[in-house]
């Protein structure tokens, strides 16, 4: 290898590199970062090289670093002369044969292509690939890369890290050459200062000032250190930078050495990054051979020695003084500052330490100047920062964004938001020294100061997205557990303080915390932050302080309600499924009882946890399926349909009366207390059941003529037969619950009457008022609202329905109306303003409707209802919408495009949701929440502002679903009884169940069973139930699939 000693040999190497980058025969490059290899890139590379040799093709095959989008790996770049560079994604070894056929025929396989690059700005140079392939998006047009600007990652994924000539080809070492020729170190430092480059390790200290201090220090030996310890969990940008472009780091350090007068540099790299260490050593060797490192660089008389030291697994060594202690052969325990390393660092000599990413910004500033650098980023922090976007987000990877970009852009635009059926809850930035930022604050620009104001820090750039399955208390505990195990143990606040904080947080996640613990956490966090010796201790409490500040209600939930909504803290729940069930049914118990063929005991267990098992068994949206651990093996256990089978078997099995007697045996003796319940919907019925079971005398006031609320008057017969509902109501009637029908509270009886006649009152009137729709033409004949339409049908009233019906809306009410109208012989189209995946309706219902012939039109918002001559409806005009910004619900807001679509129809059913009856609330005199105009109740007891008056269900939560509403009824009953009787009698209501607590020896391998749908055309004709439940054998097999997560070391 020829040494480069002058301009001509420099340009010769540059040309040689270009020939490899743009070879006449075309080039194939495989992304071989560690994560690429983890995704099978190695096998892919060998398949390609065998293929090329086998067929004697001339393609130049190279290994390159990672281009950034990890979720698209393995990545392969292909280039044919004259054409743009095309990035192929998710390439498997078996695609190689077809790929080589296409390439050798001069074609690019478009189906594998992700994006194309026509011309690439390497900042230190430009490479023109070619134009063409019009329908393939450019690299910065696809969502993941939109808005990114690659300065630090300029070469990653494009050049071969193992070949110095490819680095030279894109203008590498040009900045070094310029600095050596200008021989004006002060001017370079001024440039770095003018560019206001701030340290990318996390603290954000001005790099120019640090270099200036080192330059002015007088000593015969000065050191430069590159901090590549990157111990932050969730951060891997330094690894990819080194693996993709090692020479960029070397060039930065040599310039730094020349400018500050340091003659030796040390690269302190983590031992957990073997590939980065290997490629860096290779690059150092190559640079020394070519005269760009070591003795007499480029023949200009400057010498700079660079050596690599592998860290040995200590996060604290990311702190500069600890790193120096580690290099001096001691344990990595930080030393007090002053003295600062710039005055007395490694072996007492002046030393300057910068993070990997900071070094990568040096060459661009030298080549393009500070003015160009300050164009990107924010005024106080110019330039870009590389973030590792990971966690519960659809597109993960390395993202280099200008500083000051709002969090929203990262999570939604680049990351694509949470996976389907999930919503993002928060983002954790800055690793163990950072904090959790709630989704309400996603407009915050990502910058040193703005993140600090929220209590977090930018830190290394780790960005972990979390959804509602993540418990923030557990996240805080996780980070304290991390810093506690990485604390060096030298200073008291961090060593012992973190241990005590971990003990407190463990008590929270185990449900054993006390009120004092909440205050202690806050006080201890501030003490550790203010008193610790080094950055580790000073920032360790940030995760706790930010979660206490932004997610305090989660701490209170764990403390007072002993509940972990995310279902992560296992001790706070019997099992993940029980935790997710709004009624907290002991699911493992009834599965085990049925498995032991004890149907009646299983029914008792089910009905005591959920008084309407057959109704919920048909209409519940089964949140338990999302938390079932069986999904980790194949699919979730079908819990809802098993408890539906159990209930149906008893109701039709002839021994229902004996079972009712058995339930009544567990009833508490009469307490002499009288309770009134307003509203006989599922919420009211549940509350009535439990209060009656606890011996109170219960009277239910209902404005309709019969009990059931939505179950009777909104859910169509094919979904919930009235006979099933009546079976279930028999139990409640037998409990002696009195019903007063056709009575409207506020008219036939007032709240004041109730408070005098009863010891306690529970309001559960649900949400029956239709949301007001701003749509011209709603006053026309033929325009109906969903609920009144379904209600009228349930009361067998005559409803005038046209031949062609349009339903507006995407919830359950919309689908129920559509399928009902279909059964009445109409042709039905459902119009929804977002996409299918955003529809709140239960997926099985949407699919079943489609099979029955319902048409769907998405991304269309109602614009105008057109009336015919005699005032009837003839058509509806809708505006096509596109999806714009993400709103706070984590879904994209539909934005009308102005293009109008016209649908011929004679009936329009509006199913855009129901709200609370506001006039009832205002008249009730109860305290309301100001902005949401909802009833203000205590989150833990559901008591309203008027003592002994409680409220629950849709009335306080807004339109929701049956099981959530019933959950409120159950919770209210528990609290009302506790207040009425002054004792917590609730647990005694449940009988002792004897059932096996031995983990299943071998878990059945069979897959999940589903209920059986009648053929679409047959069920579309009438209102008979559209599905038949599980058979006995299927239900029994389903019970065998349960992993019994309720069995733990302690309890058997």
């Amino acid at each position, binding site marked *: 290898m020829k040494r480069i000693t002058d301009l001509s040999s420099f340009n010769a190497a540059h040309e040689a590199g270009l020939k490899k980058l743009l070879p006449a025969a075309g080039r194939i490059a495989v992304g071989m970062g560690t994560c690429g290899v983890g995704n099978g890139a190695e096998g892919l590379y060998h398949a390609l090289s065998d293929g090329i040799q086998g067929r004697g093709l001339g393609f130049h095959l190279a290994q390159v670093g990672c281009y950034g989008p990890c979720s698209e790996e393995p990545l392969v770049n292909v280039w044919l002369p004259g054409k743009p560079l095309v990035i192929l994604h998710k390439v498997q070894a078996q695609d190689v044969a077809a790929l080589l056929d296409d390439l050798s025929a001069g074609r690019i396989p478009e189906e594998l292509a992700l994006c194309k690059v026509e011309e690439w700005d390497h900042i230190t140079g430009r490479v023109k690939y070619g134009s063409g392939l019009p329908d393939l998006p450019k690299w910065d047009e696809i969502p993941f890369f939109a808005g990114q600007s690659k300065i630090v990652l300029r070469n990653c994924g494009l050049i071969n890290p193992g070949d110095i000539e490819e680095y030279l080809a894109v203008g590498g070492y040009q900045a070094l050459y310029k600095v050596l020729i200008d021989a004006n170190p002060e001017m370079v430092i001024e440039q770095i200062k003018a560019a206001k480059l701030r340290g990318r390790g996390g603290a954000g200290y001005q790099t120019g000032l640090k270099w200036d201090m080192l330059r002015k220090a007088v000593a015969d030996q000065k050191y430069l250190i590159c901090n590549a310890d990157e111990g932050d969990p969730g951060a891997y940008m330094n690894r990819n930078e080194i693996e993709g472009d090692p020479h960029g780091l070397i060039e930065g350090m040599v310039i730094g050495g020349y400018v500050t007068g340091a003659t030796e540099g040390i690269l302190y790299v983590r031992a957990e990054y073997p590939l980065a260490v290997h490629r860096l050593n290779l690059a150092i060797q190559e640079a020394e051979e070519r005269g760009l490192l070591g003795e007499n660089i480029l023949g200009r008389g400057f010498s700079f020695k660079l050596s690599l030291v592998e860290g040995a697994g*200590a996060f*604290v060594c990311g702190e500069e003084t600890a790193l120096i202690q580690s290099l001096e052969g001691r*344990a990595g*325990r930080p*030393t*007090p500052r*002053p003295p600062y390393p710039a005055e007395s660092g490694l072996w007492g000599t002046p030393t300057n330490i910068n993070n990997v990413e900071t070094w990568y910004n040096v060459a661009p500033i030298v080549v393009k100047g500070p003015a160009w650098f300050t164009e990107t980023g924010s005024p106080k922090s110019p330039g870009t920062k590389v973030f590792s976007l990971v966690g519960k987000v659809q597109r993960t990877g390395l993202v280099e964004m200008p500083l000051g970009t709002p969090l929203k852009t990262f999570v939604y635009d680049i990351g694509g938001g949470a996976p389907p059926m999930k919503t993002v809850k928060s983002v954790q930035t800055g690793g163990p020294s950072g904090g959790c930022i709630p989704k309400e604050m996603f407009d915050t620009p990502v910058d040193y100061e703005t993140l600090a104001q929220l209590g977090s820090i930018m830190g290394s750039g780790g960005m972990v997205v979390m959804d509602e399955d993540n418990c923030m208390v557990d996240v805080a505990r996780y980070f304290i557990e991390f810093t*506690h*195990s*990485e*604390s*060096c*143990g*030298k*200073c*008291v*606040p961090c*060593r*012992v*303080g*973190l*241990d*005590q904080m971990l*003990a407190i947080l463990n008590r929270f996640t185990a449900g054993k915390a006390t009120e004092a613990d909440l205050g*202690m956490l806050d*006080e*201890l966090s501030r*003490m550790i932050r*203010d*008193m*610790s*010796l080094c950055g580790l201790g000073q920032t360790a409490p940030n995760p706790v302080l930010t979660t206490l500040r932004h997610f305090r209600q989660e701490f209170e939930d764990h403390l007072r309600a002993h509940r972990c909504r995310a279902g992560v803290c296992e001790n706070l729940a019997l099992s993940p499924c029980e935790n997710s069930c709004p009624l907290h049914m002991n699911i493992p118990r009834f599965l085990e009882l049925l498995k032991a063929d004890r149907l009646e005991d299983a029914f008792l267990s089910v009905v005591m946890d959920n008084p309407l098992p057959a109704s919920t068994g048909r209409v519940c949206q089964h949140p338990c399926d999302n938390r079932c651990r069986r999904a980790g093996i194949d699919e979730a256990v079908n819990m809802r349909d098993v408890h539906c089978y159990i209930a149906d078997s008893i109701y039709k099995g002839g021994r229902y009366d004996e079972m009712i007697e058995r339930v009544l045996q567990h009833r508490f003796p009469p307490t002499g207390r009288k309770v009134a319940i307003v509203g006989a919907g599922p919420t009211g019925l549940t509350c009535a059941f439990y209060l009656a079971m606890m011996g109170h005398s219960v009277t239910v006031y209902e404005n309709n003529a019969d009990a059931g609320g939505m179950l009777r008057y909104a859910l169509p017969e094919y979904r919930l037969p009235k006979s099933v509902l009546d079976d279930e109501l028999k139990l409640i009637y037998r409990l002696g619950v009195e019903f007063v029908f056709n009575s409207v509270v506020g008219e036939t009886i007032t709240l004041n009457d109730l408070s005098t006649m009863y010891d306690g009152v529970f309001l559960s009137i649900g949400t029956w008022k239709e949301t007001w729709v701003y749509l011209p033409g709603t006053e026309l004949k033929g325009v109906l609202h969903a609920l009144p339409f379904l209600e009228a049908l349930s009361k067998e009233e005559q409803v005038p329905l046209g031949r062609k019906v349009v339903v507006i809306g995407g919830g359950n009410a919309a689908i129920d109306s559509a399928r009902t109208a279909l059964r009445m012989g109409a042709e039905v189209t459902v119009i929804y303003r977002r996409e299918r995946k955003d529809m709140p309706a239960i997926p099985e219902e949407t699919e079943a409707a489609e099979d029955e012939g319902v048409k769907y039109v998405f991304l269309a918002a109602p614009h105008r209802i057109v009336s015919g001559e005699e005032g009837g409806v003839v058509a509806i005009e809708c505006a096509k919408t596109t999806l714009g910004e993400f709103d706070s619900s984590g879904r994209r807001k539909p934005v009308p495009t102005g293009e109008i679509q016209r649908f011929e129809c004679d009936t329009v059913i509006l199913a855009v949701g129901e709200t609370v009856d506001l006039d009832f609330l205002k008249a009730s005199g109860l305290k309301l929440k100001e902005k949401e105009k909802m009833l203000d109740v205590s989150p833990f007891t559901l008591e309203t502002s008027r003592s002994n008056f409680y409220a629950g269900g849709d009335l306080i939560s807004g339109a929701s679903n049956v099981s959530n509403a019933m959950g409120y009824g159950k919770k209210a009953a528990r609290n009302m009884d506790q207040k009425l009787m002054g004792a917590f009698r609730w647990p005694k209501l449940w009988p002792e169940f004897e059932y096996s607590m031995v983990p299943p020896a071998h878990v059945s391998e069979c897959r999940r069973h589903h209920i059986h749908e009648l053929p679409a055309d047959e069920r579309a004709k009438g209102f008979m139930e559209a599905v038949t439940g599980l058979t006995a054998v299927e239900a029994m097999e389903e019970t065998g699939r349960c992993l019994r997560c309720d069995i733990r070391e302690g309890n058997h």
Partner: protein
Amino acid sequence: MDSKITIRIDGELVKADRGSTIFETAKAAGKRIPGLCNMKGLKPVGACRLCMVEVAGVNRLLPSCTTPAQEGMSVTIHSARLDAYRKQALELLLSERNHVCAVCVSNGHCELQSLATALGVTNVRYGYRYPKLGVDLSHPRYVLDHNRCILCTRCVRVCAEVEGAHVWDIAGRGIHSMLTCEMNRTWGGSRNCTSCGKCVQVCPTGALAEKGFAVEEMVKRTTSVERLAVVRGGSR
């Protein structure tokens, strides 16, 4: 530049030698700053954090034992925040290991105990950890009781800087840090220990003691090490 500078401590003007730390300046002016790991004659390490002070114009607390006094500095030793933080630091130390003062050889002569009294620590609000720790009786004349050790590393420093044997060091990290004699040997089995006993004299608690003393009888001669260090021109 003349060798004297003036700084203000708790509002009072005080003369100080250039280069001396705030801790030494305050001590010379008769203003005691609490501290457990610092000792004249040994290199300060800033581990116990009890000597933290507020300095006007600096938005974070500074360890007075390692921060040099600078002309015109205005230092606050006692403030509500500092006193509360120091009490918390003492409570953390008392909760970390088994400090059963009633049956300790240093009862009544222990710097940790007297600081707790001076700062009004009447109880420990954190949960006691009750770690299982050993007692090393292998040395003919001395005892090492890990239950009383607060990891202040005075013994490590005196053995390395003054005696030069470097027998002691800290093994492990975080809450699992332990004082170790050479390669985790028993004290009696040490190869380099000269049995000079300096480590016993500098130990602020009952962790290192001479054999033959019962409860409340172990009194340490700390001034001996200070004089020796000054004679040998130890750092500051």
